[in-house]
């Protein structure tokens, strides 16, 4: 876009003709061509006219510069610099351009002459203050421009410095602070300065936290691949309970998997899944999750362990929760996702899946400020699955009965819509209060967030209390920081039978109003369960750290941090004897009276303590103004201890009220020597401990801010590895070149250009403890009634961490001052993936955990931010990102077949992605027989024939759960005081396999309903049907391609409309805003659902997602 403006002559008397070429949008004056034509005009007039036509402002000392001097100039189409050079060519004036300021001073020759005459000294003092919040800035740099001399502000943001020189008035002070715009200040005749710095809204000047060991860099100087979200970019008004859901789609290459329901485990994949999809026991596989570090504290991951009662499977094990619920989104200052080797190799054997560094908000000096917000909304379930109605179900059921030789049952006229009975309107309620302030030595920030979510799923609710306390204290140069994030989450979820399709011909109530029986073993009437059962989880957590830092000298700093993540969780369930979920078979006898085995109390406890202690020495020095070196060296110790307890009691005398586990008692059987009194009580406990000792180092070097080099090295020793291989060495290097900082770089189009690349190794040590050791199980009452031990898990002394070698290359460029583009290519080669492999049984074991597979993830990442319009009244900014992902298993070590069978959708085979869905190509329904027709090697088979000829080992790849590309966007508009933002995410490609039990598994219809799609069943010869004949001997095979749906979607995750009241309208407040927010607005799927039938839109989430519309108010005072 270009614009030519011709300035009418009469505006600046009759002598001036200035033509301006504006090549772009706002304030883009530096590179505009100037034409000046003045004849003996006072200099001040010439300067004024330049100021008028450009954004330049001239600063000069009127005592030194004679602005009235008549000057002539005639130049055409020159850059401002060229024009000014010409203007001052034959004068004693010289100029310095800095941003939009042009400083005029006397030429050196003259200063030198003055110098000889008088050598001056002046003590200057001042305070550097952040313009946005009026807080003083400690650690800001004040330099005499053009030299390395200067001062740094103290805790109170103050500095003092003795200026020396012949012409102090002409000295320019360059004031800089990370994250702020650098400002030049002419000393003039002042001795006291109050200098305000403005925040740098330019993304490149943003501060990026590069490690949790105390390093940070300007975004433009970051060598590695780090995606950053600042607090203002996080949709904290989104009606979600944890941060992971708010960042969905907002970080390039980061795929946040949307788990429905509140508080479920987090699933964040950075640049693809970093490990194999386990073939069995998915909870026991290697961690695929990134390392999450909050203010230096390594967050503990909530995972199941390889032990009965604690393996996360079955009805009575603990429901896993999301550790990120421990911090409130409002408390987060920034979130940095480390992706490539240059960024993560400092985390060595823990870095393979990427690292997320979260920093919380800190207090700053000044009057105590308060911030409050409240939000209230309602939510509804969206995209529910449609099931067969009573009539349709009855019809299908009778077809089944008739075809299987049973007698049919006439439709009873009942049509229960279980979904409607179990879902209603939810309520979302959030309160947040924060206070911050401090003086020179001490500053603090505290906050409390209370969240109360009534889910649309009746009876399920969650209450969450998060606090944040951040205290910083300075004793002389010693800095002491304390950060505490206590949290309490109370979750109540008795509505647990949502995913079971009860039959519609069953009335939920009996005639007398009591709950009816549903007749499904192990389940109860879901309405009765909500009413009579309990399922509450209380989680207390504390995430805290204390750190000390001390500068030994200007170049060397020592710091140490101790972090602790403690959580105590108790899940307490009661299955009431009043409904079938608590009515177990059998009886027990107490005091001679026989009772049915009714009522069950189950208590699961998890207590986890994870601490890490780090210490590091940080170095920072500039040599000759051109060599900049910084680096660090340190150690880290960490230990993760989780204790598990399980208690269960079954069979109570009065089973309809909640009983203690210890109430499950019965009479002792006197014919045996055992005491059976507590025989219906079960207790178990287990532990999972691991520890690690690490040393790490990093070095950064740059030459003239043009060439950057980064090197990382880390040594990890971990208890989870085999003793042969318990030491891991990882490291990485990265280089970048800021081309636009080169002297000869001169482009009107490109403002910033950087290329970078990195290479290095990381590992994945979160492979579950003890796997390498080989285990014995011990039993009482063994051989000859003695205690005995027998082998269970095979030892693998050489079991080692998974290795992830990362390559990254990228280019960052900004152009037209308004478009920022970043493009990266990555290739992560993952080797030594841990898999369970069958081994020759002559070894005494049938399988072994070993490092036996390799795979890669590769892709391109593009992120861009465009400032479409930026003016005082209207702003429009768009950020958009997209990442592609391809992964493939490249090697599966020896040990027999390349294909792990087991009848499941996900397998491991060389040449295919680990997320490949295996199954059978479905061709259609045979109009003659009504049976499924299946294709294999170009041949079409009847389902029965296929089943006789082939088994799951013959399955072929029919899809892949992994998308080809994914990403997200954020559009924000600001019009005066009104702002609107629309956030979303999308996925292109990727498949979703629906379980067959909901579509055409007719043999379960005795007590389960099917989705309405089942109604398209084959009825008569010649029918072109979608579902097979309703009988039992049409074999039910799960993975047909017809159950596969294209998962390409676009999701609007959040729309937020905010109105900021004009400041003067509310007196006691500094800021007041109201907002309207819609979360989970809606989905668009490429694969459309047929009319009156379910498609991926409905099938995707069994636990329906909630759309929340809320309003809130936000104030500061």
């Amino acid at each position, binding site marked *: 876009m270009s614009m030519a403006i011709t300035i009418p002559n009469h505006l600046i008397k009759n002598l001036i003709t200035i033509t301006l070429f504006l090549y772009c949008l706002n304030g883009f004056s530096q590179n505009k061509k100037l034409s000046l034509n003045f004849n003996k005009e006072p200099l001040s007039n010439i300067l004024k006219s330049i100021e008028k036509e450009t954004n330049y402002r001239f600063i000069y000392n009127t005592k030194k510069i004679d602005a009235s001097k008549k000057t002539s100039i005639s130049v055409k189409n020159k850059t401002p610099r060229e024009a000014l050079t010409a203007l001052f060519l034959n004068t004693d004036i010289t100029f310095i351009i800095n941003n939009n300021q042009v400083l005029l001073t006397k030429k050196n020759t003259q200063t030198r002459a003055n110098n000889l005459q008088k050598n001056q000294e002046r003590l200057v003092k001042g305070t550097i203050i952040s313009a946005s919040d009026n807080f003083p800035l400690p650690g800001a740099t004040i330099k005499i421009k053009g030299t390395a001399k200067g001062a740094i502000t103290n805790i109170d943001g103050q500095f003092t410095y003795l200026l020396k020189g012949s012409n102090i008035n002409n000295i320019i002070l360059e004031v800089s602070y990370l994250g702020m715009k650098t400002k030049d200040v002419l000393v003039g005749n002042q001795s006291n300065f109050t200098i305000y710095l403005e925040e740098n809204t330019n993304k490149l000047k943003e501060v990026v936290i590069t490690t949790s060991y105390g390093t940070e860099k300007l975004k433009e100087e970051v060598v590695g691949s780090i995606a950053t979200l600042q607090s203002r970019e996080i949709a904290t008004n989104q009606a979600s309970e944890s941060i992971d859901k708010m960042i969905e789609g907002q970080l390039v290459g980061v795929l946040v998997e949307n788990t429905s329901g509140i508080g479920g485990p987090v699933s964040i994949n950075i640049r693809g899944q970093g490990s194999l999809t386990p073939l069995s026991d998915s909870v026991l596989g290697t961690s695929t999750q990134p390392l999450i570090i909050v203010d230096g504290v390594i967050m503990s991951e909530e995972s199941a362990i390889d*032990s009965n009662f604690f393996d996360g499977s079955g009805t009575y094990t603990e429901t896993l929760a999301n550790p990120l619920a421990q911090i409130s989104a409002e408390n987060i200052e920034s979130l940095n996702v480390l992706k490539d080797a240059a960024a993560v190799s400092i985390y060595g054997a823990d870095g393979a899946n990427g690292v997320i560094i979260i920093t919380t908000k800190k207090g700053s000096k000044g009057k105590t400020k308060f911030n409050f917000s409240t939000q209230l909304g309602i939510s509804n379930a969206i995209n529910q699955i449609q099931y067969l109605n009573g009539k349709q179900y009855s019809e299908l059921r009778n077809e089944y009965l008739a075809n299987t030789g049973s007698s049919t049952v006439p439709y009873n006229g009942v049509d229960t819509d279980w979904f409607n009975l179990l879902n209603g309107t939810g309520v979302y309620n959030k309160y947040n209060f924060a206070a911050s302030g401090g003086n020179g030595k001490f500053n603090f920030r505290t906050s409390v967030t209370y969240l109360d979510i009534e889910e649309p799923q009746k009876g399920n609710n969650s209450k969450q209390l998060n606090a944040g306390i951040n205290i910083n204290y300075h004793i*002389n*140069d*010693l800095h002491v920081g304390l950060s505490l994030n206590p949290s309490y989450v109370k979750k109540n979820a008795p509505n647990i039978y949502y995913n079971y399709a009860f039959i519609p011909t069953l009335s939920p109530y009996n005639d007398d109003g009591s709950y009816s029986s549903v007749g499904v073993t192990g389940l109860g009437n879901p309405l009765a369960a909500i009413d009579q059962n309990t399922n509450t989880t209380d989680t207390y957590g504390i995430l805290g750290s204390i750190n000390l830092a*001390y500068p*030994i000298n200007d170049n060397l700093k*020592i710091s*140490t941090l101790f972090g602790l993540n403690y959580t105590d969780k108790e899940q307490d369930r009661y299955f009431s004897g009043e409904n079938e979920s608590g009515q177990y078979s059998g009886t027990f006898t107490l005091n001679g009276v026989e009772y049915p085995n009714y009522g069950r109390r189950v208590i699961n406890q998890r207590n986890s303590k994870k601490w890490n202690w780090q*210490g590091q020495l940080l170095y920072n020095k500039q040599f000759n103004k051109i060599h900049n070196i910084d680096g660090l060296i340190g*150690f880290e*110790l960490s*230990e993760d201890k989780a204790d598990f307890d399980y208690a269960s009691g079954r069979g109570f005398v009065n089973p309809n009220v909640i009983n203690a586990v210890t109430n499950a008692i019965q009479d002792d059987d006197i014919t*045996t*020597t*055992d005491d059976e009194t507590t025989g219906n009580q079960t207790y*178990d406990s287990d*532990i*999972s*401990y*691991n*520890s*690690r*000792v690490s040393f790490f180092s990093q070095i950064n070097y740059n030459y003239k801010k043009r060439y950057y080099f980064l090197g990382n090295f880390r040594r990890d020793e*971990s*208890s*989870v590895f085999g003793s042969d291989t318990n030491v891991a060495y990882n490291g990485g290097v990265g280089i970048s070149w800021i081309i636009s900082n080169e002297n000869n770089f001169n482009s009107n189009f490109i403002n910033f250009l950087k290329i970078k690349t990195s290479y290095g190794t990381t590992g994945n040590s979160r492979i579950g*403890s*003890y796997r390498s*050791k*080989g*285990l*014995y*199980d*011990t039993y009482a009452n*063994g*051989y*000859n*009634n*003695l*205690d*005995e*031990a*027998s*082998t*269970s*898990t*095979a*030892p693998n002394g*050489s079991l080692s961490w998974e290795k992830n070698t990362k390559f990254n290359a990228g280019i960052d460029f900004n152009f037209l001052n308004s478009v920022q583009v970043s493009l990266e290519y990555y290739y992560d080669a993952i080797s030594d993936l841990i898999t369970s492999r*069958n*081994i*020759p*049984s*002559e*070894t*005494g*074991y049938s399988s*072994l955990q070993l490092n036996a597979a390799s795979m890669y993830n590769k892709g391109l990442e593009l992120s861009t931010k465009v400032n479409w319009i930026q003016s005082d009244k209207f702003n429009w900014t768009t950020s958009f990102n997209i990442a592609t992902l391809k992964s493939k298993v490249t090697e599966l070590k020896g*040990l*027999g077949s390349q294909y792990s069978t087991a009848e499941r959708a996900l397998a491991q085979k060389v040449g295919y992605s680990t997320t490949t869905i295996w199954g059978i190509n479905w061709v259609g329904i045979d109009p003659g027989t009504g049976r499924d027709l299946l294709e294999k090697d170009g041949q079409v088979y009847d389902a029965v024939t296929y089943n006789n000829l082939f088994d799951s080992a013959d399955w072929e790849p029919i899809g892949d759960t992994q998308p080809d590309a994914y990403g997200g966007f954020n559009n924000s508009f600001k019009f005066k005081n009104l702002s609107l933002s629309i956030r979303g995410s999308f996925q292109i490609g990727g498949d979703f396999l629906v379980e067959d039990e909901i579509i055409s598994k007719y043999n379960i219809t005795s007590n389960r309903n099917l989705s309405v799609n089942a109604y398209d069943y084959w009825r008569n010869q010649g029918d072109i049907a979608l579902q097979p004949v309703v009988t039992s001997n049409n074999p039910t095979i799960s993975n047909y391609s017809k159950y596969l749906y294209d998962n390409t979607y676009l999701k609007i995750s959040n729309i937020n409309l905010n109105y900021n009241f004009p400041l003067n309208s509310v007196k006691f407040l500094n800021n007041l805003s109201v907002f309207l927010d819609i979360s989970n607005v809606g989905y668009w799927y490429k694969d459309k659902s047929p009319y009156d039938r379910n498609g991926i839109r409905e099938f995707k989430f069994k636990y329906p997602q909630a759309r929340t519309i809320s309003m809130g108010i936000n104030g500061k005072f």
Partner: protein
Amino acid sequence: MKQSRYIKSLLTTLGLILICLTQSCDEFLEQEPGSQTSINEQLSSKDGVLEALLGAYTSLESTVRSERYAIYADLQGGNLKFSPNLSSSSLGEISVPINLENVYNFQDLAQSSDLESIYDSNYDIINQANLILEFVEALTDATSEEINQIKAQALTIRAYCHFLLAQIYAQNYSYTADASHLGIVYNTTTLTNGITYPSRETAFATYTLIIKDLTEALSFYNEADILDGPEYSYFNLYNTKAFLARVYLTKQDWQNAYDMANDVILNSGFSLVSSENYISEWEKTDTPVSEILLEFSIPRDSGDNVGGSMSAFYGYTSDSDYEKYVASEDLLNLFETTDIRKNLFLEQPLATLIDNELEDVNYYFTKKFQDNAAFVGLRLSELYLIRAEASIGLENLEDAKDDINVIRERAKASLLTSTDNLEELLLEERRKEFCFESQYLFDLSRNQQDIVRNDGCISQTCNLDYPSDKFILPIPQDNIDLNENLQQNASY
């Protein structure tokens, strides 16, 4: 001043950390599992090793007492037939038990061998023994006698399991003249030394290794009392010698077999069960016959409830509650009328479907394995017949005849008067004495005899001439697939 103090204290702390890191890293990095115990931990103390040894015995006991092993030799050899079905849908029908169906028809499949679990569990036990042997030397809380005693038992367990596998998966020793035919994988190492892909030894090497282990074990046995429980339930000096005698016999190493058997008969202190007590000894419910040398204790819980016994296959409680296996008349007809061993059969009429009509037919259950009977490992009678067989091999026919007569005399059978047909008579005597004791198939193959099954045989193949590939079973296909060094048996 203040500054330097901070620096000092910080540096001191850092120094201390580094010292602590280098010094106690190992301990800090040692994390033990909860309800399970790591191998290193389990086997680091005497108590732990003894628990592991008991675990090996439990595994061994459950393996030999499993239907697939306990029945195999008698079923294949023709000592057994099946009682009629009890289930209402097939009441009175006679069918082959599903667990041994393919084996019974000489049609076992490598892909899903009936005895696959026997193969796997024996190697599992061998691994348990190997682990003990690997760690026991390093025990600091055990005396050298105790260590030796543990070693002796672990070595014997290892040899016992290998022998058992050799009998099922390798042709008899004399199948080739120099025993160069395939034996089995002999495992003496554990995964802690890395995974190996072993190949099978020759029969010669297999037996050499078994004998080596047993000879070594014999040198380690001593007086140390390490485990509670009946002496016969553990391997000891004399039952190991008795077992070695059996191994020598199988190898047809006559002199050694003779010497070993002779040693046990003369020196073990055991004597044969007498004629008078013969039946009552077998009828005892909870304890073995008095001449027992080795019997693995059946599992019992703390309330003394039995967790399984041999009666699960041979038991008879009533005509509506009985088990699957009964004696064939091929076996019954061998006994002379005076033979007291005939009284060990429990005759019961059972409803049997004949031409679609239920008729009562007499069946013969064995009294050896009623109630809480355990698997009989070794008893003294066998040593007499081993010595007899060895004597034949050494051509001391008179000695052989005398030893056979010791057993016949006790059984009140007619005594042999000549040395004619001694080999044949000895084989028949073994069949009568050790029926149901998992020996007969191996007796047949050792003596290169054909399998002949007449009465009650419902197999598609009742008879099998020696030699045949079907005298032995296939190595499980999984193992062949996983290990290219492993060779499958012929015809599988």
